[in-house]
């Protein structure tokens, strides 16, 4: 025992780990991801050996159904059911595809898994291939993940060398091969039909469903597509049994979910929790609360397709259905936490800007509608919003949501709709009062004024102002041209007598009352 070990917290004591339940991530950070032996030492490929030597495909599917596993890629579709469709589809050739496109800004769960435990994904895919009757699989991974690609390549080669990929695996007569396809990093290529078009070498544009991939997928063959984390859960379910998996989580959302915590939170990183954990536990427990002791304002969950939830939703247990009800969604597991100094209109604008520039351009509502919505949000954040704009936004949001072809367009309005639902007052403050409550929108920041009672006419502020809007002569009272001041704040710290104050303060502090009255007099005059 090291001499001075006492008083050092153990992992279980850390807030960050205390309420985590690491299942899919169990190996990440513990094994050498580039060594197949490390994986095998921690029971790797045991599930595959069980499946190939003891189970019929239908039994595998039944086990996955029984576990209640739902897709971790966003939609939350029951995985066993999806496998059943692909199994039932007739065809001599089938494909199994792993969706490792991970396009949500702020999300890196899949990257963590791919880099930290690539073999678990391989094992999940081979099992899936056996279950649906596919002898070939693709991993579609964004090219911006070079390390993950390298580790996957290594893992595939190692599995081939060990005969875990290839012909007659475990003497069962089952053959399976895997290929990697690096995508050029378009968000829409994460949508399953767009992804398959991209593998085929076509423009990454979604196609209408039906036909569903299970019947007509890659190269028109029955195909099954799952997310990285979904596959990573498969070996666990087979090894530990569906029943023990189902014990975790809630009635309708079993197991765990990995979240990528980002934003204004103390501990950012990857955390895996049981489904049903509350948002409060994740943000204030695992995440350690808001940085710099600021107030929590909202959490954006589910990436650009998700929604912003306010503090009254913090005790919501995280599962697929309650999130949808609250106007957000599980998405792939990105959690962006925002503090009091965020502007919710600006946040909506940020996500909308993302989806509108990632729209593939195929269908009218998404291609044209998201641009018009963005223009309205731009107007509002620049202080040029009109009262009708909210009505227009809602009309557009509804049409884009209902009419778009693929999930990108269908969910693109979510950040706008959820902020309108929970933070409409912020929109109104921008439009009616020319105010940005979060203090973010540059055009709406209250400018500065000089307290004439204090000013000594030193001219420091004149020198500090980058746009020359302070007037005054040496030893005379200076004045800021309020119309032109862009609220940069450069002058404030330069004043030796603290005579420069931001305008929104004056009404809150009695010592500035004389400035306020003057303001009102001016208005009256």
């Amino acid at each position: 025992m090291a001499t001075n070990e006492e008083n050092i917290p153990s992992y279980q004591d850390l807030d960050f780990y205390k309420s985590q339940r690491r299942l899919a991530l169990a190996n990440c950070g513990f094994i050498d991801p580039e060594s197949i032996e490390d994986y095998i030492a921690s029971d790797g490929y045991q599930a595959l050996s069980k499946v190939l030597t003891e189970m019929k495909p239908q039994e595998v599917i039944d086990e996955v159904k029984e576990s209640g596993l739902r897709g971790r890629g966003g939609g939350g579709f029951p995985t066993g059911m999806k496998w059943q469709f692909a199994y039932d589809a007739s065809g001599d050739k089938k494909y199994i595809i792993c969706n490792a496109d991970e396009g949500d800004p702020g999300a890196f769960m899949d990257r963590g898994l791919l880099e930290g435990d690539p073999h678990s994904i391989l094992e999940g895919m081979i099992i899936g291939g056996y279950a649906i009757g596919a002898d070939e699989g693709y991993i579609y991974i964004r090219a911006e993940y070079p390390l993950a690609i390298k580790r996957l390549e290594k893992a595939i080669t190692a599995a081939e060398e060990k005969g875990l990929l290839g012909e007659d695996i475990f003497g069962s007569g089952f053959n399976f091969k895997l290929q990697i396809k690096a995508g050029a990093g378009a968000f829409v290529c994460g949508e399953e039909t767009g992804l398959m078009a991209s593998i085929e070498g076509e423009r990454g544009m979604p196609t209408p469903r039906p036909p569903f991939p299970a019947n007509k997928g890659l190269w028109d063959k029955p195909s099954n597509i799952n997310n990285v984390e979904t596959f990573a859960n498969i070996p666990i379910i087979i090894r530990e049994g569906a029943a023990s998996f189902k014990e975790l989580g809630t009635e309708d959302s079993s197991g765990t979910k990995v979240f990528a915590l980002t934003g204004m939170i103390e501990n950012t990183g990857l955390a895996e929790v049981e489904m049903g954990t509350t948002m409060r536990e994740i943000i204030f427990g695992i995440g350690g609360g808001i940085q710099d002791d600021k107030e929590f304002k909202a959490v954006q969950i589910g990436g650009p397709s998700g929604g912003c939830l306010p503090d009254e939703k913090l005790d919501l247990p995280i599962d697929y259905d309650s999130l949808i009800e609250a106007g957000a969604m599980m998405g792939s597991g990105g959690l962006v936490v925002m503090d009091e100094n965020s502007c919710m209109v600006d946040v909506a604008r940020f996500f909308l800007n993302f989806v509108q520039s990632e729209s593939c351009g195929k269908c009218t509502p998404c291609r044209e509608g998201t641009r018009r919505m963005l223009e309205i949000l731009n107007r509002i954040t620049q202080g040029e919003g009109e009262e009708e704009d909210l009505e227009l936004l809602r009309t557009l949001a509804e049409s884009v949501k209902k009419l778009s072809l693929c999930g990108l367009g269908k969910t693109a309005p979510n950040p706008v709709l959820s902020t309108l639902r929970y933070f409409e007052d912020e929109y109104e403050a921008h439009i009616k009062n020319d105010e940005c409550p979060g203090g973010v929108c540059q055009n709406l920041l209250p400018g500065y004024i000089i307290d004439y009672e204090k000013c000594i006419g030193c001219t420091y502020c004149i020198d500090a102002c980058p746009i020359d809007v302070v007037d005054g002569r040496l030893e005379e009272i200076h004045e800021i041209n309020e119309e032109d001041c862009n609220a940069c704040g450069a002058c404030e710290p330069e004043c030796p007598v603290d005579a420069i104050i931001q305008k929104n303060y004056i009404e809150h502090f009695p010592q500035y009352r004389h400035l306020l009255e003057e303001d009102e007099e001016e208005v009256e005059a």
Partner: protein
Amino acid sequence: MRSVAELDNLQKEVQSKLEKQAEQAQLIIGMGTCGISAGAKDILTALETELEERELEVIVKKTGCIGLCEKEPLVDVKLPGETRVTYGNLSVEDARRLISEHLENGNIVRDLVVAKMEE
């Protein structure tokens, strides 16, 4: 892999190999994208040079992201028979201290420690 027995044998083989390794001192460094972008590669080089200079027989292992991206680069020190200790937010200088203080002299470097990992 032709049979279940083959896999089981391999598993036993590698497990005992890993147990053997545990009889030696180990350094485990987080080499996910998060670790690397926080400087893990430089740390790794520094650790390797330092070990070479001091002629220490230590196993250096790489691993993926353990979730604490905030505290990368992370390096764990595991001495035979002792608890594995994680250090975080390391600079190249810090990494050298792990070797001189913890690895060689068995003293946990308290100001850099994140947590210990009890089995």
